[in-house]
């Protein structure tokens, strides 16, 4: 560690004001704060800080995302080798998935961090840590076959228009990773929906090429139910074998890279709740809202297949669990007041199921539900605060 510190101290003057490479000081700052704790003291304002700064918070979220990411990588390989009819074993499946996901991850980080550094340079601020989580989330919420240039365009759009124009990390109204996905969904619908994008049938780095075997169908369960007639169909995997609740819970089904396994997502949720990084109230109320609305549709809903889908299936299919645990709890865009969190989460669950059931154009409603409620987060907080003021005023006036 001392070795790194020495190098940084030696090159620091080159990047400081007046130095030869002063133009690149944002890049230098980013590397420095990533490697060591900078030797700087606060000059004004608050002098006592909590040890859990935003860098550590972000790192905890990354750790919480790792189970779902690893499972997602394995699942990409698993689905791929089923689709081309080969048996290669666990490690080869994982390696294939790793190679398939890695380019998306790299593109997301290079484009996003590049823009962050330029923006920080323009604003003369340090590079904020916020993008580390966003960049990790993006490959997890897109189909594995999304072309890399689309990921790059969407990431650039989201970082610039959903984040930097609002003032950077901590000031964004919308969840940046979800804006990336929304951009992809509306700009390139053919690459983001249908039944051809969820399972990779081509090779990854010239390895694992093959022809899809007969009877292969890459539709996700929500895609299958979207085209079904009135009664709930029996879901089937990509080879036509039936799958049930527990298959969807464990997650070996086609879907976006990191969102299929509710089990792995719940592991992440435990990490987030134990460390206190994310709000358990929001998570619980999202699931509650989704289950509540699904039950209502079961009882009085229209006579369509998805309206008859039992509530517990809603919670394990598609991006519901991923959105509830990692997206809805984003502290910047969610409601801040404790009562507000319950309302905010509950309405996300309700909206997600309403969009799924009532809008045949969007088989998955989680993304739109969270973005919609992002807008209302502050409004909910405002009403909660006003109600509290009114309550306490009444207490004062009654004496």
């Amino acid at each position, binding site marked *: 560690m001392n070795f790194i510190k020495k190098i940084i101290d030696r090159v620091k003057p080159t990047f400081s004001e007046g130095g030869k490479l002063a133009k690149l000081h944002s890049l230098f700052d980013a590397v420095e704060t990533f490697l060591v704790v900078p030797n700087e003291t606060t000059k004004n304002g608050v002098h006592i800080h909590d040890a859990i700064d935003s860098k550590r918070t972000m790192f905890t979220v990354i750790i919480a995302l790792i189970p779902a990411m690893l499972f997602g990588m394995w699942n990409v390989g698993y689905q791929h080798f089923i689709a081309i009819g080969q048996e290669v074993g666990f490690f080869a499946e994982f390696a294939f998935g790793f190679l398939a996901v890695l380019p998306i991850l790299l593109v997301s980080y290079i484009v996003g961090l590049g823009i962050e550094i330029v923006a920080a340079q323009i604003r003369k601020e340090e590079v904020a840590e916020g993008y580390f989580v966003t960049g990790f989330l993006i490959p997890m919420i897109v189909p594995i076959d999304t072309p890399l240039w689309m990921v790059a365009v969407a990431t650039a759009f989201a970082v610039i228009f959903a984040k930097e124009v609002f003032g950077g990390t901590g000031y964004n109204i919308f969840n940046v990773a979800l804006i990336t996905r929304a951009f992809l969904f*509306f700009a390139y619908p053919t690459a983001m929906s249908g039944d051809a994008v969820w399972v990779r049938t081509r090779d990854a780095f010239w390895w694992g090429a093959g022809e899809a075997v007969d009877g292969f169908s890459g539709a996700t369960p929500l895609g299958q139910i979207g085209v079904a007639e009135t009664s709930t169909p029996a879901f089937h995997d990509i080879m036509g074998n039936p799958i049930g609740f527990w298959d969807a819970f464990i997650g070996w089904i086609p879907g976006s890279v990191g969102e299929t396994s509710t089990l792995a997502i719940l592991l992440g949720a435990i990490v987030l709740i134990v460390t206190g990084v994310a709000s358990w109230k929001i998570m619980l109320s999202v699931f509650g809202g989704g289950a509540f609305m699904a039950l209502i549709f079961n009882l009085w809903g229209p006579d369509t297949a998805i309206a008859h889908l039992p509530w517990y299936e809603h919670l394990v299919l598609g991006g519901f669990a991923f959105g509830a645990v990692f997206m809805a709890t984003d502290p910047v865009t969610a409601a801040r007041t404790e009562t507000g969190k319950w309302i905010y989460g509950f309405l996300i669950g309700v909206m997600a199921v309403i969009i799924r059931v009532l809008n045949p154009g969007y088989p998955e409603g989680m993304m739109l539900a969270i973005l919609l409620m992002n807008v209302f987060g502050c409004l909910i907080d405002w009403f909660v605060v006003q109600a509290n003021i009114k309550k306490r005023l009444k207490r004062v006036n009654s004496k």
Partner: protein
Amino acid sequence: MKMNEELKNTLLGPLSKNNPISVQVLGICSALAVTVEMKPALVMGVSVMIIVALSNVVISLIRNTIPNSVRIIVQLVVVAALVTVVSEFLKAFAFDVSVQLSVYIGLIITNCILMGRLEAFAMANKPWASFLDGLGNGLGYAIILVVTAFFRELFGSGSLLGYRIVPQSWYEAGYVDNGLMMLPSMALILLACIIWVHRAVDKELQEK
């Protein structure tokens, strides 16, 4: 000489410093609706330009005889007559475009830019100055429309004025047109970008 300077400002001011869309933020609705392609945007821009200029002249000519209490109705009648003429003209000579523009030619009547110019300028100025003011505002409106439509058509359909720009080989290599460009929401973001660039270039427009 001083008079000429003033007239020049009346004509050219709305192109930049006093642009009806990017500075006054008027007429946004139609700017979102007709800018999917360049052709309807051009036709819409020219139509608005003609209507604003002519209605400005007409109202300016009769400005001293209009009773103050019914001036809005009088203005509306004049605008409506001109809009009908333009609409019929388009139906006769450019039917395809008039179908694409659908109700938006008719809705020029409600365009805020028109009523704004009539109320703010034509009611208090001489016909020639009013004509130049209308021309300038119409032109300022048309420029923003065409710039927005340029980006929307180029990235949304890969063509300009209906001619293919993005070569077929790109599509075969995996390029896909951006569907978001076809939606009005992206037009609003593009307008915001135009305003952003405009203000970055013209420091006078920035709020303190």
